[in-house]
């Protein structure tokens, strides 16, 4: 009974979609209400935010349920691949911070075509990352410098990525590992592009503490095990707001921006919920959730506030890399990196 009804609804939606590419929100909502709860594969931001996002979505659209499955970017991509390989459609929406994954998905033709209405409001900062009709950026995180305020005076803190190479930081630096952490991987690729591989050979001479990810970097800084580190500004801001001795610095040679992207899957079991949810992810309410949690919304109208009351437009951003270049550079970089920092 219900599958057939769903089919009919899908058919109607399909016809409606082709009649008018800008699907009407109310019609989407009506169609989505006849669908089962939707699964969302997500690997972008901290654990609480997917929960807050689906709660806000359910509040805006009563009767609709989205269940987030959040994993590390490698694990979630593998799970999606296994679903696709065995032709079991589980997730309808796929959100990840690794742009290169979408290149593969687009190439394999497993994404659904949909141009979200809300995409019109995306900031020019991020529009280069759009794959028209398929992949859209929903928000960004920033990779910046941080230091322990109990041990380092603001004036003495490093101001740029280059400052980290100064021998005075020998035994003081904490960083993450690109094979474990997506944020660190992007930072490594950008640094290598800006300063060459020598950057890490020099950094290695300062004997940095290499842990899994920015989370551990923050812990090492708070504990005083190390005094300066590389992490997302939001982590430093959140932790400092609680009273921990940590502060963020936006490096003068360019803060690294990490985009979260989202797409709908071609075999989405709940295509209408998926579209409505995509509109929501790119829309103002979700933008507000991102900003409240110290991430940056990708929308032009978002009031992104950075540490120290700065705006995104006030700081220098490192050049954004195309996902194709990123994908090409990363594998070799990770191997060299791990050879350098492991034995």
């Amino acid at each position, binding site marked *: 009974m219900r599958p057939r009804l769903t089919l009919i609804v899908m058919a109607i939606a399909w016809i409606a979609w082709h009649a008018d590419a800008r699907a009407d929100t109310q019609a989407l909502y009506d169609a989505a209400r006849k669908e089962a709860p939707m*699964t969302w594969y997500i690997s972008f931001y*901290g*654990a*609480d935010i997917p*929960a807050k996002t689906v709660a806000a979505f359910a509040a805006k659209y009563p009767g609709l349920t989205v*269940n*987030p*499955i*959040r*994993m*590390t*970017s*490698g*694990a979630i*991509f*593998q*799970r999606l*691949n*296994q*679903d*696709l*390989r*065995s*032709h*079991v459609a589980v997730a309808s929406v796929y959100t990840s911070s*690794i742009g*290169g994954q979408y290149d593969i998905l687009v190439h*394999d033709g497993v994404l659904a075509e949909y141009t979200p209405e809300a995409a019109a409001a995306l900031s020019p900062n991020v529009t280069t990352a759009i794959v028209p009709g398929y992949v859209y950026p929903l928000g960004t995180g920033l990779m910046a410098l941080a230091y322990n305020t109990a041990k380092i005076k603001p004036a003495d803190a490093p101001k740029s990525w280059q400052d980290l190479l100064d021998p005075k930081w020998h035994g003081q630096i904490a960083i993450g*590992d690109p*094979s*474990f952490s*997506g944020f660190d*991987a992007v930072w490594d690729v950008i640094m290598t592009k800006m300063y060459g591989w020598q950057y890490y050979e020099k950094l290695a001479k300062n004997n940095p503490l*290499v*842990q*899994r*990810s920015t*989370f*551990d970097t*923050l*812990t090492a800084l*708070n*504990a*005083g*095990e190390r005094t300066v580190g590389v992490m997302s500004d*939001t982590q430093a801001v*959140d*932790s400092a707001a*609680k*009273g*921990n*001795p940590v502060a963020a610095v936006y490096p003068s040679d360019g803060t690294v921006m990490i985009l979260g992207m989202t797409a709908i899957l071609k075999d989405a079991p709940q295509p209408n919920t998926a579209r409505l949810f995509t509109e929501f992810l790119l829309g103002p309410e979700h933008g507000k959730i991102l900003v409240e949690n110290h991430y940056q919304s990708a929308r032009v109208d978002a009031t992104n506030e950075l540490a120290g009351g700065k705006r995104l437009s006030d700081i220098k951003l490192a050049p954004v890399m195309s996902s194709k270049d990123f*994908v090409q550079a*990363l*594998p070799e970089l*990770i191997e060299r990196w*791990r050879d350098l*920092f*492991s*034995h």
Partner: protein
Amino acid sequence: MPRRRRAWDPARALFLALAAILALLVILPLAELLLISVQVPGRNGAGFTLANYAQAFGRQRYLVGFENSFILGVSVATFCLLLAVPMAWAVARTNMPGKQLVRLMMLLTFITPPFLGATSWVLLASPNAGWLNRLYAWITGAAHGPFDIYSFPGLVFVIGIYSVPYSFVFASAALELVSSEMEEAANILGAGRITTTLRITLPLITPALIGAWIITFLEAISIIGSSIIVALPARINLVPLQLWQFFGYPLQVEVAAAYSMPLLLLTVAMFWLQQRLLHRKGYVSLTGKGGARQPIDLGAARWLLLAFSLFVVTLAVILPYLVLCEAAFSTAWARGFSQSNLTLENFRQLLIRQTLLKQSIINTFTYSAAAATIAGGLALATGYLIERRLVPLRGLLSTLCLAPFVIPGLVLAIGFYAAYAPPPLLLGGTAAILILAFTTRFLPIAFTSATAAIRGLNPEMEDAVRILGGGRFVVLGRVVAPILKRNIAAVWLLVFIASSREVSSALFLYGPATRTMSVMFFDLTEGAQFEQLAALGLIMAATTMIFVAIGQAIAGRDFLLRRE
């Protein structure tokens, strides 16, 4: 007279059923893994290749990972025995005071996720800011403390200390079954207490000790949490770290599968070694003839043993939980102990805002209980059939029961998802896939401890029942089960706790309604909330203790924490 037809043998029927279940639980996922290891990467399954193997073993660093892991496994397994055996002996056979406390602390050690323990130990013994180093520097006036968790000894310690409970449970369960008769005989013949213990008691429990050694060895070479937290900063490449790298970007699942295959060979080698060592020696210690077990009077030495035991549990439980409590009740943990920093907010956040917490607690314990029951039943039945030589292909059955442990949880999970998520089973995201994964993953623990217990049981008693006309099931139900009650409870508890703290496979297999506490826990490690992480760690420990207490109430005094 017509020839009598062969009577229907329940053992054979049971064998077929067990073989089928093991095939489903072990062979199917491992076969999927093997298949993946020879697949051309890519979604469209474009054919077969050995290139994945060439890649998996084609770089110096990858091979060093195997070497490091092997040395680590041997060190950890030996370290565990050295710590656990004196404690187990003291608790099981002597008049050492405070036995209940030591048991309770061992239980707490066991329910502590190794991941959580390692995190705490980083805060305790990191070279610059570790509490112990600062304490040392404060007392002695030295510039630096002596401890460095980011080192090979540090790694052995932090993995070993949370594997000690395996060795402790194995050794104490076996020691409790050894009757005093043989020890008394040795005493009468003039052997001293120490000689008796070393020459009689310990050799009698060799099967349990070897089992414990193997389990802790395998645990050490496949553990991911502690490897990430300690080995990565120590810059020591290990098998699980290398595997995790294959799971990053670029995703190389095929190479990861190929890289795990030697671990399977290692399991087979372990099993062979076990057979060699135990070959043709008798380890029957339980004759059913009763025989009182008198606690050995240690005199003043009992305080020495108590001090040793308390030292071990202080390292495993008391110090790490002190660190966790400090963080869990702090607004900002780095500010240290002070009244203004004291808060219950972290717990409130978890309990009120995280609506998922309640569901994940229920999930964790239902799945763990189900896995413990299935794995325990399977292990006892298979172990019994093998030990009593009732079925053919015993070597194969044992290997099947031991094989899953060595495959790191994440890789095993890939095999599970490949085997169970597609049609016809369609178990993706269900409770069943998690229960089956936990069952398979911890079947080796259940099997090893069940086999050790059965091996110590004299078949004479069972033969007596058979001679008197009782069938196999009467033997099992009226003789074997009652005698091994305590061991069965221990097997169940081992799998239950191991499942409740399992991270790596749960992380990959969970679905919208089947989140477990360990998944939530891992989530928090990516959200920069050390305070909440610590609070959840305390909630996990507390709820597990509650469930263990309930278990104790149901199973009576024979649960791990038995009353004296």
